[in-house]
């Protein structure tokens, strides 16, 4: 069992958990992920490690509610336990001296680029962060990234904060700036966003790395469910990735495969909602009984 030490909302439906996992914390490098099971019988969910503290033996996970399992994870509070946490898995980000690196995070993807920002900075890079969100409330980790990066650009789809528009628009501006040529781009977020980012940098041949999020089961290479097509070859995101050259990734296939279990996800979601409703009714009935 793995104890949650801290649990708080970062944005609507986005929760940050600080979890006691000393062995994982000791080995964590930017780019690594863990597989988490909230409770016995639960799904195995891959989550990128957003931060770690080897001294305190903790890792930080940022989770967005997208289905029943993530809703349950986000309902956990400080002192609660996660049944299983295994990692750190995947290959760590190759942290090199690129020159000027732009990190582009969309939604919870911003949590993926956060540990990369400090490592890249420590390696002597100029680091720019671009963080996208639907509106102001959805832009996360701005303060933390500002403390590390040379420049940060929050972007909102509705223009309620920072750059008015998608992260691709801001990135387009950055790579067009002759004063500060961009040498590398690292991106994490929704698949359509990463695909669009790859298209922005392709023509200029700027090295672009995307952190992929396919469906996984074991996370150790055993099942092959996370296979993604990169440069025409099928690779396993869990052991060969999860970061790949974005210009070579077949994003259409990734998008399609992510939809394989929509029907099941809906039915599990409905089961969760009916359980919750039942719980509410039960509590109401018990309250009534007490009053009576």
């Amino acid at each position, binding site marked *: 069992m793995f104890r949650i030490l801290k649990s708080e909302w970062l944005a609507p439906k986005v929760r940050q958990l600080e979890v006691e996992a000393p*062995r*994982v914390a000791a*080995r964590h490098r930017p780019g690594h992920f863990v597989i988490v*099971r909230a409770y016995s*019988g*639960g*799904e*195995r969910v891959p989550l990128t490690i957003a931060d770690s503290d080897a001294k305190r033996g903790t890792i930080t996970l940022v989770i967005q509610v997208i289905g*029943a*399992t993530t809703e349950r994870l986000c309902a956990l509070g400080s002192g609660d336990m996660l*049944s*299983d*946490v*295994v*990692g*750190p*898995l995947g290959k760590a980000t190759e942290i090199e001296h690129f020159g000027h690196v732009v990190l582009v995070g969309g939604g919870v993807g911003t949590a993926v680029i956060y540990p990369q920002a400090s490592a890249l900075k420590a390696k002597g890079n100029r680091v720019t962060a671009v963080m996208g969100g639907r509106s102001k409330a959805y832009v996360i980790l701005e303060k933390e990234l500002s403390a590390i990066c040379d420049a940060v650009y929050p972007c909102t789809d509705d223009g309620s904060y920072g750059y008015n528009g998608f992260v691709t628009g801001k990135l387009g501006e950055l790579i067009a700036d002759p004063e500060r040529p961009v040498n590398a781009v690292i991106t994490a977020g929704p698949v359509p966003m990463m695909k669009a980012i790859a298209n922005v940098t392709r023509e200029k041949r700027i090295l672009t790395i995307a952190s992929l999020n396919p469906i996984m*089961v*074991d996370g*150790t*290479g*055993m*099942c*092959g*469910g996370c*296979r993604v*097509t990169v440069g025409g070859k*099928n690779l*396993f995101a869990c*052991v060969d990735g999860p970061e790949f050259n974005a210009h070579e990734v077949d994003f259409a*296939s990734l998008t*399609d*495969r992510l*939809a*394989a*279990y929509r029907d*099941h*996800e809906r*039915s*599990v979601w409905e*089961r969760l909602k009916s359980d919750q409703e039942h719980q509410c009714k039960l509590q109401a009935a018990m309250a009534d009984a007490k009053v009576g």
Partner: protein
Amino acid sequence: MKPAERMKIQRQAMPEAPAEERAHHFREVNLGLPPDLAAIEAKRCLSCKNHECVAGCPVGIDIPGFIAAFDEGDLERAANLLYSANVLPGITGRVCPQETQCEELCLVGKKGKPVAIGYLERYVADWARENLKRTITLAPPTGKKVAVVGSGPAGLTCAGELAKLGHKVTVFEALHRPGGVLVYGIPEFRLPKAIVDKEVQTLQDMGVTIECNVVIGATLTLDDLTKTEGYDAVFVGNGAGLPVFQNIPGENLKGVYSANEYLTRVNLMSAYLGAQADTPVLRGQGVVVVGGGNTAMDGVRTARRLGADPACLVYRRSEKEMPARVEEVHHAKEEGVRFEMLTNPLEILGDEAGWVRGVRCQRMGLGEPDASGRRRPVPIEGSEFEIPCEVFIEAIGTKANPLLTQATPDLKLNKWGNIVADENGMTSLPGVFAGGDIVRGGATVILAMGDGKKAAVGIHNYLSGTGT
């Protein structure tokens, strides 16, 4: 009883759940011999002088000894004899290919059917599990610590043998539940999880510690184990966990699985419960499984139980060349699995939304024997045809998992990435032993157990300073 009288007794048949029923549930197929039939079967053993059966057993069980004890009515002694050679008899009694090992060499079998050694092993193990508190005696503690990587058949056996010898053993398992292939791969209807859990519990009762959620090569390295965690020796039995795909068009369509993924979802993650399970598995009207081994058989029989009609097995050679156990093939046929032999998939076909809709296959003929000694399959021109299906499962083998070996550059590997181990199970690193599929490539539970046992002896000698 005289040998001639014993020879006259017919081999007792294993009672089975009726095929038409069991094709729809996951409960065990083989029900186990009832006491009266088991007692009759035990009388068939001649306790012959050469006891060749023992030579056929990778873990060297005193087969005539345990059967004689049983025949004399001393089940406890029978159990002790079993457990002294094999810490997992309830498992091997179910999944060993006895017909090509002990039973193949049985003297009784030269004239008629061999003694049903596997059935008797299972009977005694099941009796012991229900009736005996402790069946294993342990040597006094040696003060030595051994780490075992992987809790599959190789690791569990090695751990049990080392514990018997008085060593302090910790088993590290990457998944959230111990058992390795015994819980993620082999289905409930062949090996109930409750049996694995109890055998694992027996090891824990012997003082073995099991730590789940630790991936050696990621969470800790081999170096950590020997240098910072203070282990005096290590056994690596992390299995051949990387599925091989055929590399044919259509493999990324929705509905294509490796057998590992399909079986893991259904077994370890309980997807057979359908909407009641958190982890899903795709079910189709038609399911096609490609391969000819036990894993392919497990896959197609699982698909059948999840409602597939047809549940179809496609294999490029003929039934005779199939590496699967005869019993599995027989059971699969009884359960209504369709066999398409001498057939090779060329392409997985998808619909416009990216779902599998069928597989295009080609018929094969058999040519000259190849390197494996089996006749080489040769494509027959113009024989292409389609099998409609919604799920396509590839069970054509696995490769060595690279996680541990990549993190251990000094460890010597062969050209396939398998760890090289000597006749005592020792690798190129002193004190680091290995066995099972990570050394052999894909093999059987019992061969992995044999390796685990051999390595335990090697480790014991290494730790005792008597060399290996």
